[in-house]
């Protein structure tokens, strides 16, 4: 058990940091400006491509698929340097961390060859089409239908809360392929191109004022018959794997971003004098401790996943970080005071720390609410009786 990095890791860090600095001082300076908006897609696409060209697209993947077989330590370093550079979350997070990881584990060789290299090259963006108006926590209540028509799947139904769908080229969709089936049986995991007449995307405004998620109407949308991950009717197991990546490994970048956020809040508290307030001092210290614990747990989770022995530490990860970040959002408002309520410009658009107060309300909802996380921990990991179902 050891935390320190090797000289090779330090070299990787130095090389990455200088590459990031060069990009962010040059062509991609806009990414770090405070009013940068994650809906500036042209820029984000160019940024993903630049990462891909430099070999930083998907460092954890095998070289044959566009990766560089990076060690766990190097993945941690990547996340740390990304956050240290002041970048917002990875633009194609859903594609790389959710779909990419799912295909690596469950995709056919053809699917890996077709879909992974464009992720590493930063040329194809993805959305996650799981939730529906009547299938959120109760995800297996999916009503979207798909049927084979010759050499294509044809989809009809509605998805909702689909993040970044308006910038996606593809969407992975959980749809019912066995007519008359109910619950988790009879669902399939399909890969569907977004730019076609049968896919209608309507942005939904969020409580932050931003439009990041969408509702999607599938009206005879088509995809090639080969674009199914796992066997027809076995999509639930694949989707559960996706969710495990979403709640686990993909969150590596989170705690490094939170580190930066907390550092910013500490600096603000020192600047406005509230760091001397005994109660706020105490809460800031607790936030620091909580974040350090999060890092410890995340590293342990990753190490155990790497060894093929994932444990309870991974199962509790989402519940821990979501709750921490929400409390952090509240602390932000108490440290910054009422000034944080005033928008920086003429629009209802918040940035930086104050925005976290609003945005973090989602952290206990997406990827499975806190209540659902507790059910999962209790039922799958602690062996307690399952929920009664209606």
């Amino acid at each position, binding site marked *: *058990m050891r935390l320190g990095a090797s000289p090779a890791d330090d070299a990787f860090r130095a090389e990455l940091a200088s590459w990031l600095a060069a990009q962010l001082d040059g062509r991609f300076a806009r990414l770090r400006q405070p009013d940068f908006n994650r809906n500036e897609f042209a820029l984000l696409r160019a940024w993903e491509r630049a990462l891909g060209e430099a070999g930083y697209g998907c460092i954890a993947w095998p070289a044959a698929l566009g990766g560089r077989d990076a060690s766990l330590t190097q993945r941690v370093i990547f996340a740390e340097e990304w956050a240290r550079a002041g970048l917002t979350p990875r633009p194609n997070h859903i594609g790389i961390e959710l779909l990419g990881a799912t295909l690596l584990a469950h995709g056919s060789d053809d699917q890996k060859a077709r879909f992974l290299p464009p992720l590493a090259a930063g040329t194809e963006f993805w959305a996650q089409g799981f939730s529906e108006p009547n299938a959120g926590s109760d995800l297996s209540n999916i009503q979207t239908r798909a049927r084979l028509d010759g050499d294509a799947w044809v989809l009809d139904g509605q998805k909702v809360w689909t993040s970044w769908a308006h910038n996606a080229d593809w969407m992975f969709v959980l749809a019912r392929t066995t007519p008359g089936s109910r619950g988790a049986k009879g669902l399939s995991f399909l890969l569907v191109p977004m730019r076609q007449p049968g896919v209608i995307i309507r942005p939904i405004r969020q409580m932050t004022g931003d439009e990041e998620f969408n509702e999607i109407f599938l009206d005879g949308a088509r995809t090639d018959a080969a674009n199914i991950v796992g066997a027809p009717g076995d999509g639930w197991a694949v989707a559960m794997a996706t969710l495990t990546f979403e709640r686990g490994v993909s969150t590596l970048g989170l705690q490094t971003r939170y580190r930066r956020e907390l550092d910013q809040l500490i600096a603000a508290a020192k600047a406005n004098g509230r760091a001397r307030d005994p109660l706020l001092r105490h809460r800031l210290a607790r936030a620091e401790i909580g974040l350090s*614990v999060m890092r*410890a747990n995340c590293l342990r989770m990753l190490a*155990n996943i*790497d060894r093929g022995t994932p444990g309870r530490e991974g199962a509790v990860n989402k519940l821990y970080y979501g709750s921490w970040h929400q409390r952090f959002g509240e602390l932000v408002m108490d440290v910054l005071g009422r000034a944080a309520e005033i928008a920086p410009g003429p629009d209802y658009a918040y940035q930086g720390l104050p925005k976290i107060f609003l945005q973090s309300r989602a952290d206990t909802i997406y990827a499975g609410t806190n209540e659902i996380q507790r059910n999962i921990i209790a039922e799958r990991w602690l062996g307690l009786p399952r929920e009664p179902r209606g």
Partner: protein
Amino acid sequence: MDFAFTDEQQMLQDAARGFFARHAPPGAARARLTDAAGYDPATWRALVEMGWLGLDLPEAAGGLGLGLVEMAIILEQAGESLCPLPFLASAGLAARAVLATAEADRARQLLAPILSGEIIATLAGCGREGVALQLDATLRRDGGGFRLDGAAGFVPFGHVADMLFIAARDADDPSALCLLHLAPDAPGLTIDRPVQMDLLRPEAQLRFDAVAVPPAAVLGAGPGVAAALRRVIDRATILTTAEQVGGAQRCLDLSLDHARQRIAFGRPIGSFQAIKHRLADMAMQVETARSAAYYAACLAQEGDDRALAYAATMAKVHGSDAFSQCAGDTIQIHGGIGFTWEHDAHLLFKQAHSASRLFGSSDAACQRMADLMELA
């Protein structure tokens, strides 16, 4: 970086688990509630034979040259099995204090009987309030030697120690500390073991009335001693977190058993969300505390003084939260039986409290963290 046990560490954990399963099976703690020693000498001898006392001491000092992670592995298992032993007192505190303050030859001499288990040693590092290095004992020059007056509080296994290492203020230099050692029968030394709320963490209260201290018994004096002892306490704090993890795990396991078996309204109570979600939260506390304890052990082992202070503080606060929450919830999940003397829930609850207060409170640790963060 590889934040997982090595094969050797895994083997050590298996050995420790087996050791405590054999020597401290469920129920064994009961006998400790009434016996005067507060620990089982046969178990202690067996532990000594395992060779674990010098795990983290350098080989030059007679140890095995391993680290805090290995020590934490032992303490986690001890905590889980509710098995009080003078391990932390002798190996975690006293031996380390000697190493940190005495010059090399003297240290080897003093350490030999401690590491061989021939004697039990302890460190009196707290004053009456039980806060580390807030001392109420003063050493002053007296003729050719020294004289010790005052008191020390909450000295782990002080009532059975064959050698007591005592941190004291230096009368000549109010800013400096010194470390000295006394035999338990030193004239003027009173060792009292009052009834404690937690019967599984025996601690003695010491009084010093003009205790004569020969110069040879003063190991270290001067400006470096306080910092050296602080490091010793910080390491012991991280080990206490490992013990807390074990205790919290025991809470979770007891509660899970009960929640699966106890039927109410025709269903196991573990099927009610109010109970199962509480258990999920307990699991979150246990696992994050385990991550924190070993992370702290690594940080402390690999880093500088600040890293050690940071690690100890973070581990203490989270470990205390985790064990206290789990112990309280364990009583709640058990209902009436959880409130009885008969059931182990109260033993864990009391352990959780005493562990959270060892060397100082969690609130004070938060203050220290705020200082480390340079929050003006």
